[in-house]
């Protein structure tokens, strides 16, 4: 399974998106009981979303937490290289970051004593940086992109090609052997020295933070950690917006400055290094930090260190005894106002990572108590664990997550009917979102009424997420055949309209949802729809969806494409990924070339505009204008959002889920800024 996810969990990058290959594993099945059919009741995600609070006096220290991940082994111990979300789940207990977040999307300084966006300027990249660019010899040109043989740890800042030279490369005038002006990491510093940058973030580290190996974490570690991502699978994501990072007081100091190429409202989250490594690991090339292939054991500043491991069978993390927060003290964190007895580090002694790739095994192990907690369980089991008397002591905790299912439609006028906005709107009105959630996900999902999920709601609106559900531009949860019929009539199109609904072949839950949509559409008489599954996700995506004229071919066949995606904690990802030209022919804008939508600039403004960077309310207002345009244009329509749910046995107390599974061993175990702490009481 190629989950191209990002690595960081402690400060989730807002624009890291990952293409979903189906949530909750293969086949979501029910215990009998949906729509009043059987013995068990339907699940209640609202109840699961309620927090359980812990009274510090009740806390029992110690114990081994048996935590099951839904893979057969760790993908890559080297987090610089790993793209698997489940790897991050484990290693977010080993590595700490500069800041932390909570389920509401608020940020708290963590290893950083202070962390501020101190400056934003109106610059354009790459145009304003051309005088800092240097000439490098082109090693090769492919698909209009020039590549170079740069030294170690160096790369071309993405997008940093001189505009004239880039045009020349695309025309074929410049080829291998010629010189081209580009901005690499080596030159970025000079630009920053001259004050040319888009956003500046200044960070001060606490003193005395130690890695598991005893080394003190200083500015040099933070700045040097970027090096490990050069040449890694995650390089593109780390340098999405990053221009340069430096330590103004030297590597032994505690001050760090990070710079974005343009003014960027997400800079505070996206600029920091995904993982902070000790000095002895900084020279290790990506992929080599894996003890299974002879590399060293990962070492970080997090509360747990790797104690022992065996490929595919065992991985044990133990609480480190020099955890930095215990040294620095909670009273030195400016957000802290809790009781004195509150522990300054996790109280669980050991985390035993259990590999349970099969759903059934996870369920059975929870039942007999051989594991304490697991995620990624089928919806039916979630309902049973939550509702059945047999499991009344068990806890099901769930949070709205960042994954979503969407249907993209082509707007090209090429013989079909989809170029009519009314037809697309009619389709949007006919999707049975509530039924899909109830039947296929058995209630353990959220029908989409807005084009972004709850976790991203903060900057997305001036009002609340709940209020928006009733907006007049919101998606309907129940199908609206009358509305759809009048839209079709307005379009003057013959009914029934023949439709092809495509999705990938290797996800039966997704196909089930499409079947439900087809059932609803066909029964209205307005449409005659058919499901097609051209290929598995990867080949489908790479051969059909991003093919050059996919918009035209899909339009001709009256075909739509339905996929899943996870777009992080910032609303920009949701608008940009499926509408914006920068995502065109990538993930996940297949059909809409530049100029398709009027609101493309609005998307940019909401994130890269100077006003947006300076005040979040500007962002909120901009987005409020954007959402109605998106739901009216129906280049994409959103179907449902996902939940992340954890089932914990009675032995576990105080455990609350997080919208992102990568924080299940991080936030959910210990997050003093929310009063969150989990302990074992057997």
């Amino acid at each position, binding site marked *: *399974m*190629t989950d*191209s996810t990002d690595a960081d969990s402690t400060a989730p990058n807002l*624009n*890291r998106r990952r*293409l979903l290959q189906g949530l909750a594993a293969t086949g979501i099945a029910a215990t009998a009981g949906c729509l009043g059919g059987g013995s068990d009741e339907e699940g209640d995600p609202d109840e699961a979303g309620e927090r359980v609070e812990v009274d510090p006096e009740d806390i029992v220290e110690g114990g081994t937490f048996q935590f099951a991940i839904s893979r*057969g*082994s760790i*993908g*890559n111990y*080297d987090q610089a290289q*790993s*793209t*698997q979300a489940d790897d991050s789940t484990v290693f977010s207990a080993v590595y700490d970051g500069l800041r932390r977040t909570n389920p509401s999307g608020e940020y708290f300084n963590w290893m950083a004593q202070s962390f501020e966006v101190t400056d934003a300027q109106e610059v354009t990249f790459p145009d304003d940086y051309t005088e800092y660019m240097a000439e490098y010899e082109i090693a*090769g040109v*492919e698909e*209009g*992109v020039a*590549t170079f043989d740069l030294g170690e740890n160096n790369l*071309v800042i*993405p997008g940093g090609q001189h505009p004239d030279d880039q045009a020349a490369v695309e025309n074929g005038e410049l080829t291998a052997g010629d010189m081209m002006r580009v901005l690499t990491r080596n030159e970025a510093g000079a630009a920053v020295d001259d004050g040319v940058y888009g956003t500046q973030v200044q960070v001060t580290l606490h003193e005395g933070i130690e890695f598991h190996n005893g080394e003190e974490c200083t500015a040099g570690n933070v700045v040097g950690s970027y090096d490990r991502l050069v*040449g890694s*699978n995650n390089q*593109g*994501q780390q340098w*999405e917006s990053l221009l340069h990072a430096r330590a103004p007081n030297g590597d032994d100091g505690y001050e760090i400055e990070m710079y974005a190429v343009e003014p960027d409202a997400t800079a505070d989250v996206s600029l920091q290094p995904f993982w902070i490594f000790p000095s002895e690991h900084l020279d290790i090339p990506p*992929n080599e930090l*894996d003890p*299974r*292939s002879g590399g060293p054991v990962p070492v970080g500043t997090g509360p747990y260190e790797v104690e022992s491991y*065996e*490929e*595919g*069978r*065992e991985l044990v993390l133990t609480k480190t005894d020099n955890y930095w927060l215990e040294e620095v003290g909670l009273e030195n964190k400016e957000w802290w106002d809790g009781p004195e007895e509150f522990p300054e580090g996790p109280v669980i002694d050991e985390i035993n990572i*259990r*590999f*349970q*790739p*099969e759903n*059934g*095994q*996870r*369920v*059975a*192990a929870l*039942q*007999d108590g051989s*594991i304490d907690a697991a995620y990624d369980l089928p919806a039916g089991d979630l309902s049973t664990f939550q509702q059945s008397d047999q499991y009344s002591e068990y806890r099901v905790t769930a949070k709205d997550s960042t994954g979503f299912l969407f249907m993209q439609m082509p707007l090209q006028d090429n013989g079909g009917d989809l170029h009519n906005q009314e037809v697309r709107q009619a389709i949007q009105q006919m999707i049975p979102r509530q039924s899909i959630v109830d039947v296929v996900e058995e209630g353990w999902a959220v029908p989409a009424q807005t084009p972004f999920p709850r976790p991203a709601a903060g900057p997305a609106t001036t009002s609340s997420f709940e209020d928006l559900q009733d907006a007049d531009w919101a998606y309907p949860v129940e199908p609206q055949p009358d509305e759809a019929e009048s839209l079709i009539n307005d379009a003057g199109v013959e009914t029934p309209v023949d439709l092809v609904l495509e999705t990938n072949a*290797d996800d039966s839950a997704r196909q089930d949802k499409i079947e439900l949509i087809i059932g609803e559409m066909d029964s209205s008489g307005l449409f005659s729809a058919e499901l097609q599954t051209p290929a598995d996700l*990867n*080949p489908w*995506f*790479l*051969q059909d969806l991003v093919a050059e004229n996919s918009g035209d071919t899909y339009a001709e066949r009256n075909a739509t494409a339905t996929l899943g995606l996870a777009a992080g904690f910032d609303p920009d990802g949701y608008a940009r*990924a499926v509408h914006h030209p920068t*995502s065109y022919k*990538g*993930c*996940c804008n297949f059909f809409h070339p530049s100029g398709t939508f009027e609101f493309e600039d609005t998307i940019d403004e909401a994130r890269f505009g100077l006003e947006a960077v300076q005040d979040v309310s500007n962002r909120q207002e901009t987005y409020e204008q954007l959402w109605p345009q998106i739901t009216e244009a129906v280049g994409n329509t959103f179907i449902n959002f996902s939940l992340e749910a954890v089932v914990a046995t009675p032995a576990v107390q105080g455990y609350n889920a997080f919208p992102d599974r990568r924080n299940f061993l991080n936030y959910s175990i210990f997050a003093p800024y929310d009063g969150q702490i989990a302990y074992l009481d057997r």
Partner: protein
Amino acid sequence: MSLRRFIAQRILVSIPVLLGVSIITFGLVHLAPGDVVDIIIGLDPNATPADRIRLRNELGLDRPIYIQYIDWLTDALQGDFGRVYTMGPDAGDYIASRWPETVLLGLFGWTFALLIAIPTGIYAAVRKGKLGDDVSRFVALFGISIPNFWLGLMLLAIFAVQLNFWSASVPQKPLLSREMLWWLLLPGITIGTAASANLMRIMRTSMVEEMNKEYVTAARAKGLSERTVILKHVLRNSLISVVTVAAFLTAGIVAGSVVVETVFGWPGLGKLFIDAAVAQEINLILAITLFTGVAIVLANLVADILYALLDPRIRDEY
């Protein structure tokens, strides 16, 4: 010829076979539409074309296919089976860490196949034509008609979930500990049942054949008890063909373990193979296929040797 020469000759013959296996697999995997590079970073929203080019050069994918094969072969002969793109350890490391599990499961399966097939075959042969024969035939057919994944799921559901005799998940104990060996009974039975089918039929056929031979009539005429006749003479002679076919079981057991490892979550090479195939991880697919190929070739070799040892007539033919 001498046994040694016989063995040497068989080994020599096996090498081109193994080479052929690797070539076929390599060719098939490269037949797949699409690009290894795309598989690694194709779905990454932030990947740039430059990343693709870099990766392609790094992995040497722009060279002609036969050169890639030769490179792979020379590396493989030195023990380097190449990188697994979506995961950390090399293909060779994966094989090295998981082969004990697979072999152990295979041994269990093999044992059960023999335990089921031989007595049933004998019984059926002895009772040929009578009700006992029908019943045992039916039982044998029953055993092989059940899809092994179905059988595994049922066993898991009944014994592990319903009755709680077994744990549904793999015990976290050393590989050769008592708990582990006990746990392996269920998957072992699952594999063994499916694999035992052919073996049972062979046992029966071969015994029936033997019993029709003249020496049996002679022995009976001599006044030996039926029991002695069967167990001392017939069985020994029919075991010859059974032994050799038992070695051929290996292929069936390996195939069975792919499914059974998935059902039971056993961390062996079978499960890894499925994951590798789906992810189109060429190096891992090649490494595992080669591993199973070697196992089967070895088993065939053992079978041939045993056959030659037990039946000198065969040896003399060479």
